[in-house]
């Protein structure tokens, strides 16, 4: 399927959820759905760098917060200067530019780092950004910032419904981008970086450039996910916006879903995100992270290729297909290299 129709289907699906929730007239669905969709964007974005290229980013929260704070900054600016408020879709794009640039910068700083060093550098970057925000009084510093959100907006009625729709569009766009990358030249290039950078270079793949592209796209999408957040939450504080909850969720969701394809992060985010929303209501919000932590550890140990991997293994183990996939060299002698 080409990307156009695919995007359309995603939007229609989101629209259907919107319609159903509107029919039930239950605003909680919009509240909870917003968060789940936000995780779809975050985990899809993380997966572009982490799953496709094999570079672990612990700093998702920082990019998310960057988007949120760019909104706060612009909001403050327009309030002080009494200019017209910038509509949220524009804010989302601006946040995308800001965090894309920071993503590029991060990629540039860490070009030569691999594996654990890269991961640790992203963690360090997150704290540096947090410190900057904490000390930036214009956006509220450590005390936080209030964003007054209109309670209604035409023609959607409740403002949360509007935010939900924005997140639907954003999630559909993010998944479409991820899917497009996966099937393009870029996706093949990313896969070679994950598998063997040395061999990739020897075959003409400009690995450093591709890494920069990945950090930029991934960072931009995370920032865009954060842009509407101040309007959703109403009060933004550095300690919670930069919280490691976002980091662990955006890692756990793709790993639980499966990292090699766009489907994995979506499944992971929908499942885990919904589970967390339910747990928040029924048990407590503190238990959330415990669930995420346990699921993450459990999955990486037991099902290293996530839910997708489990499904594939199950399909492959059907008898007739198994017969077709018998070892190719049945007569090869046993040996440990």
């Amino acid at each position, binding site marked *: 399927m080409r990307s156009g129709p695919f995007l359309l289907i995603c939007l229609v699906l989101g629209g259907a959820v919107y319609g159903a929730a509107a029919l039930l007239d239950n605003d909680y669905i919009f509240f909870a759905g917003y968060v789940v969709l936000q995780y779809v964007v975050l985990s899809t974005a993380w997966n572009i760098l982490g799953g496709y290229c094999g570079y672990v980013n612990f700093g998702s929260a920082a990019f998310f917060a960057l988007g949120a704070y760019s909104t706060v900054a612009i909001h403050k600016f327009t309030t002080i200067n009494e200019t017209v408020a910038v509509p949220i879709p524009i804010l989302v794009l601006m946040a995308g530019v800001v965090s894309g640039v920071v993503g590029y910068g991060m990629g540039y700083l860490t070009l030569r780092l691999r594996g654990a060093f890269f991961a640790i550098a992203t963690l360090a970057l997150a704290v540096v950004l947090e410190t900057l925000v904490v000390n930036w009084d214009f956006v509220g510093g450590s005390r936080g910032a209030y964003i007054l959100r209109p309670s209604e907006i035409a023609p959607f009625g409740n403002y949360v419904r509007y935010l939900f729709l924005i997140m639907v569009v954003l999630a559909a766009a993010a998944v479409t981008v991820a899917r497009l990358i996966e099937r393009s030249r870029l996706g093949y290039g990313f896969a070679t970086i994950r598998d063997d950078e040395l061999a990739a270079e020897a075959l003409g793949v400009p690995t450093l450039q591709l890494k920069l592209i990945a950090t930029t796209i991934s960072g931009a999408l995370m920032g865009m996910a954060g842009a509407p957040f101040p309007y959703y939450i109403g009060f933004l504080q550095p300690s919670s916006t930069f919280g490691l909850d976002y980091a662990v969720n955006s890692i756990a969701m793709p790993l639980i879903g499966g990292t090699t394809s766009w489907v994995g992060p979506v499944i992971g985010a929908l499942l885990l995100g919904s589970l967390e929303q339910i747990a928040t209501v029924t048990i407590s919000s503190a238990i959330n992270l415990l669930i995420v932590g346990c699921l993450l550890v459990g999955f990486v140990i037991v099902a290293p290729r996530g839910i997708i991997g489990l499904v594939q293994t199950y399909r492959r183990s059907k008898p007739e297909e198994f017969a077709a996939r018998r070892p190719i*060299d049945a007569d*090869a*002698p*046993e*040996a*440990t*290299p």
Partner: protein
Amino acid sequence: MASSLTVSGIHAAYGAVRVIDDVSVKVGGGETVVLLGTNGNGKSTLMKCIMGIVRPSQGSIVAEIDGIHHDLVGRTTEEIVDLGIALVPEGRRLFPRLTVEENLLLGAFRKAARAQLSRNLDVCFETFPRLAERRGQLAGSLSGGEQQMVALGRALMLAPKILLVDEPSVGLAPILVSRTIEAIDEMKKRYQLTVLMAEQNFTQAIRIADRGYVIVHGKIAFEGRSTNELNNNDLIKKFYLGL
């Protein structure tokens, strides 16, 4: 009491690449036996089979140490080394970020070796005075020849009964090759070792050998029961130079 090693009819392969095909080699007590042949012919793999690093698909490997027979196939590398069989691996494989002395001391990890640690360390520095000068230097910063000395010294610290040496000449200038070969002989005589050495440098290897085998494409192509037999053999040139 001298120790011996008997390899009978082993086969080994990496996946579908057959590297060793029905090879039998015997090293009697106190002998120095060389495995000759150019690279990629299976000499290293045979060494790895003996050390339990590669598991042969067929055949047996038996070591007789102090009158006791040990079947080596199926044992871990650590167990085999602990029996008193040491390998100086190809490429030396030192710990580059440890000092020369730390590398040597690691050789004496096993209990039997710790008892003789100080004597063996003295012998080591006596055999390779250069190492005494450089004992505090990082092994990775040494020249190729010095690294080979550390590798031999480290094996010596294991207090082995049987010494395997894999391609000691690799990457060394000719004069160092000859010195290394002499050092192996000196070690052997001093400790009454049984030595099996894989080496492609025919002329140098033959200087200290009692007997030898030529391995071509994973098979024993020629067995020389004495150095004379090896020396006076036209096949060697053909195997080596493809002429």
